[in-house]
């Protein structure tokens, strides 16, 4: 394989990492603040995809604008879901079975709603951007993937800004670092959790919109992404946004380059092997690396 090929593969991996990061951010926020693994994430990715699709199909709204519109819509959807269901289960500093199963139930319901509303066709968004790419020397950049990559970077940067510049961000960070301490210094946990859940769902919806520019989708869209998002947040340390970027990059590089030595049919095993390896090599989870420091003090 020539250097140009390797470079091409590397670019593909980095752009894939952008896709991965975009879809994982929402899951991280919810996990960080509430220690809930959002098993309904895939459902919201799917809804986001259809939202952007409908906006484009009916009102000819550019998918990128659609993604922006998805933010407020899904934010309130998330807040509503929290009000309706999530706040009723006990909070914990560990993921509980209850929360996992509740959200699994929500996922099933969302999936079925998708079937009832949109049927079982494979939909896709086709804009002039979709299939275009431009080349710099021997390296080609698919335009949509660049767009998604840019959006992912923007979301991560935007989120960092929000976390460090606003009261909400400070509350969120306080809760992510130490739930009890957060309560002691006067963070309104329920309120923050609700907003955080809303933000998490908003990012999930928007990410769904971004994915819709890349892939075709049907109501059971999202499951493979959800599992990967999960792998990424574990790799990235479960509750840091820098970690999401790192985790996405690690996974994308591993998946893309593994194909040089492994048959393509083994590719899906990469993510899960990485997950198990990361957990075992760092016995308390990757997060344990810096958690350990606090535990006995």
């Amino acid at each position, binding site marked *: 394989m020539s250097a140009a090929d390797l470079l091409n593969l590397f670019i593909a991996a980095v752009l894939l990492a952008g896709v991965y990061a975009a879809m994982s951010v929402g899951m991280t926020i919810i996990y960080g603040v509430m220690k809930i693994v959002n098993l309904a994430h895939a459902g919201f990715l799917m809804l986001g995809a259809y939202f952007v699709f409908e906006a484009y199909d009916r009102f000819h709204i550019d998918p990128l604008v659609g993604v922006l519109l998805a933010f407020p819509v899904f934010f309130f959807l998330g807040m509503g879901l929290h009000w309706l269901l999530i706040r009723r289960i006990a909070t914990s500093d560990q993921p509980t079975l209850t929360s996992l*199963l509740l959200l699994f139930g929500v996922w*099933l319901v969302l999936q079925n709603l998708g079937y009832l509303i949109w049927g079982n066709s494979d939909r896709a968004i086709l804009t002039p951007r979709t299939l275009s790419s431009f080349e710099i020397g021997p390296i080609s950049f698919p335009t949509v993937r660049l767009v998604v990559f840019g959006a992912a970077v923007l979301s991560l940067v935007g989120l960092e800004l929000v976390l460090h510049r606003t009261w909400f961000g400070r509350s969120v960070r306080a809760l992510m670092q130490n739930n009890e301490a957060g309560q002691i210094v006067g963070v309104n946990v329920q309120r923050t959790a609700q907003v955080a859940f809303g933000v998490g769902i908003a990012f999930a919806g928007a990410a769904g919109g971004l994915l819709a520019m890349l892939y075709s989708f049907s109501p059971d869209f999202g499951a493979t992404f959800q599992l990967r998002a999960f792998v990424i947040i574990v790799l990235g340390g479960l509750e840091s946004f820098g970690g999401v970027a790192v985790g996405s990059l690690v996974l994308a590089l591993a998946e893309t380059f593994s194909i040089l030595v492994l048959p393509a049919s083994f590719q*899906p095993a990469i993510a*899960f*092997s990485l*997950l198990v390896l990361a*957990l075992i090599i760092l*016995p308390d989870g990757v997060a344990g690396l810096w958690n350990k420091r606090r535990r006995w003090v």
Partner: protein
Amino acid sequence: MEQEAPVGVNEDVGDAKPGFSRIAPAVGPLLVLAPLAALPLFGPGPNTVRLLFVTLTLVTASVGWNLLGGFAGQISFGFAVFYGLGAYTAALSINAGIPPVVSFLMGAAVASVASLLIGLPTFRLKGPYFAIATIGVSEAVRVVMMNVPWTGGASGYRIVEKGRFFQMHHYYTALGLAALAVGISIIVRRSKLGLALTAIREDQDAASDLGVNPFATKLLIHALAAALAGAAGGVYARYAAYIDPDGVFAFRNGIAILLMPIIGGVGTIWGPVIGAFVYGLIHEEVVANFPQAHLLIFGSLLILIILFEPAGVVGLSNKLMRVLGRERKD
């Protein structure tokens, strides 16, 4: 929020009449076993037998899961691995001419060995990280099995048995296995091992401080649970006669095996049995009668159970009995 007792735990109910409580553990299993064993007397249709057969294999897997997830509190999403390995081992053995019962035992043994291989690294992880790791293991094993050439890879594997198909034969195998599973579950619960498991579930470090070896205990119960799931997979495989990795190793199987005890009541003897019946029968009927809305119905049911009765059907019935008991006293 009101402090709730841990899942699967009943608050003190006062002392039972000693004579009654001595026969109670024997009465329970018999009460369930008798009508199931006498099934042919009712002249059931093949579909009823099939439904009960499938449900009984689910009971076995679910009771197995409950040993680890309910008694020891180690939530695993990876039981499809054992179910699948049991299915494949039994399938390969039966095709090699080994008698079915021995094949099921071999399925159980292979699943147990796999459980040790999985448990050795992953039981060093605590709580949620163990659960997370089992997701990874489950999916990785599925993909690998898709690519193993000598089991047909993704094309699946077929069991060829000569002679006629006797559905009742399969049914009694499944019934016997399920009864065995419940028996094991009762024995474990009442043994020293059961005490250790509960202690580990409640506080692993405190249990260790009193001399319980959490790591070895968890490995042991994991192996036992895996053996049950593996045998269940084997029994199912012989019935289905065709298995493939996407079917038996599917992540959704792992979810189903975990859902059943949740529906019935985690950590109780009968919770997983009841859960498996509820899941097996309701799921099948909903799928058959509401093909357009079965996910919706099942998802909503799950949400309702989680929100309003986290202790499952057993918890619900306990609540009902308490209410009824109170009324009687008044």
